């Protein structure tokens, strides 16, 4: 009985300790901002790693998600004689929800896990300690550019996802199912608001980009420096990022569209 209680207490303390270390790491990374701005090339390489290398999966997924939305939306809307509103359905669901959320989940799987494995392996092979030996702060030199790289890449990827998705929905709805071309675009423009929908979607994806890269970097930096520890940390990155993104999405949606 007492042992169970002790286990519970240990788990709780570990969770709180991890949370504290994550925030300390975040503070360290943010303090590295001026140093990073002096070396923009480091940031550029990370925008390449997170952004450019994720473009293919984001573009293809966006296209197919938009096409599926077009098919399913047409099926439901045509039953009410409202197939003209297909564009609104596809556009609103992409810009408000699916764009930011699916992009964040894909980036967590595609780039977040890679970040964790990279940092974890650097730690396991004592490259981070090596940097410290040379009086280079590994948090500022290695982690800060990665955090801001993710922060910059995510909203751009989400915008690409939404735009490609709207085109995919247009291709299925207008090209294959015979929705009127003019109605598709005019309904979208009439019903989707720039401030309320597009800007809120961009804000969401900035928050997700921040959270996903933060989790990935922390898991890598905090990993047990063995091959098993790195593999566990990579798994945790994907799971925690997905949970955090979905939970945060609910909170953000409630704040933005709740009233």
């Amino acid at each position: 009985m007492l042992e169970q209680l002790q286990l519970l207490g240990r788990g709780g303390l570990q969770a709180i300790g991890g949370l504290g270390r994550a925030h300390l790491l975040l503070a360290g990374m943010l303090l590295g901002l001026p140093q990073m701005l002096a070396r923009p090339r480091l940031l550029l390489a990370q925008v390449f790693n997170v952004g450019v290398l994720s473009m293919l999966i984001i573009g293809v997924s966006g296209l197919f998600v938009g096409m599926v939305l077009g098919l399913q939306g047409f099926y439901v809307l045509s039953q009410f004689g409202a197939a003209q509103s297909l564009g609104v359905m596809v556009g609103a669901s992409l810009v408000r929800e699916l764009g930011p959320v699916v992009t964040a989940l894909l980036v967590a799987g595609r780039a977040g896990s890679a970040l964790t494995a990279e940092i974890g392996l650097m730690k396991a092979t004592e490259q981070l300690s090596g940097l410290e030996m040379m009086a280079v702060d590994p948090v500022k030199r290695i982690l800060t550019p990665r955090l801001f790289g993710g922060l910059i890449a995510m909203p751009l990827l989400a915008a690409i996802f939404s735009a490609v998705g709207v085109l995919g929905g247009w291709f299925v709805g207008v090209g294959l199912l015979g929705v009127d071309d003019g109605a598709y675009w005019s309904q979208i423009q009439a019903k989707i608001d720039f401030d309320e929908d597009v800007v809120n979607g961009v804000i969401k994806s900035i928050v997700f980009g921040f959270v996903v890269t933060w989790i990935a970097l922390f898991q890598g930096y905090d990993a047990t420096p063995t091959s098993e520890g790195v593999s566990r940390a990579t798994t945790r990155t994907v799971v925690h990022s997905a949970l955090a993104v979905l939970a945060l999405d609910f909170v953000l949606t409630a704040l933005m569209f709740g009233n």
Partner: protein
Amino acid sequence: MARTRSIEILVGAFMAAGFVALFFLAMRVSNLSAGTVTDGYLLKARFDNVGSLKERSPVTLAGVRIGRVEAITFEKATYEALVTLRIGREYDNLPTDTFANIFTSGLLGEQYVGLDPGGATEFLRDGDTVGHTQSALVLEQMIGQFLFNKAAETSK
């Protein structure tokens, strides 16, 4: 050196693609290009019932949108809804006896304010009140009235 150059080019292409996508969402997908009225002059109108009229609903004249509903408040003294309309600056020749109606686009569509110009030679200016208004049609009231008339007919 060739490698950094190609990375820079690819990152540049990625950022350009991202901004093009954002621009596409802004101009093609959202209503930003549809001329949201941000400046213009304000008119007031009192309605008995605004139905489901909302802030930012369109204000039209002859079917063309010339403004938006800025605010809807309840006026305590008269028990009426006070609707503030923002009309585009270029439409500055609405006669003082302009009529404001709340219409519904389509059977189940959204509601909007339709203006009917009168024949007066004076024009409405910023802060003026549109005197003649007609409330929103409430479907339940219409059905009730219809049933009432039917009942009156059959009892004759």
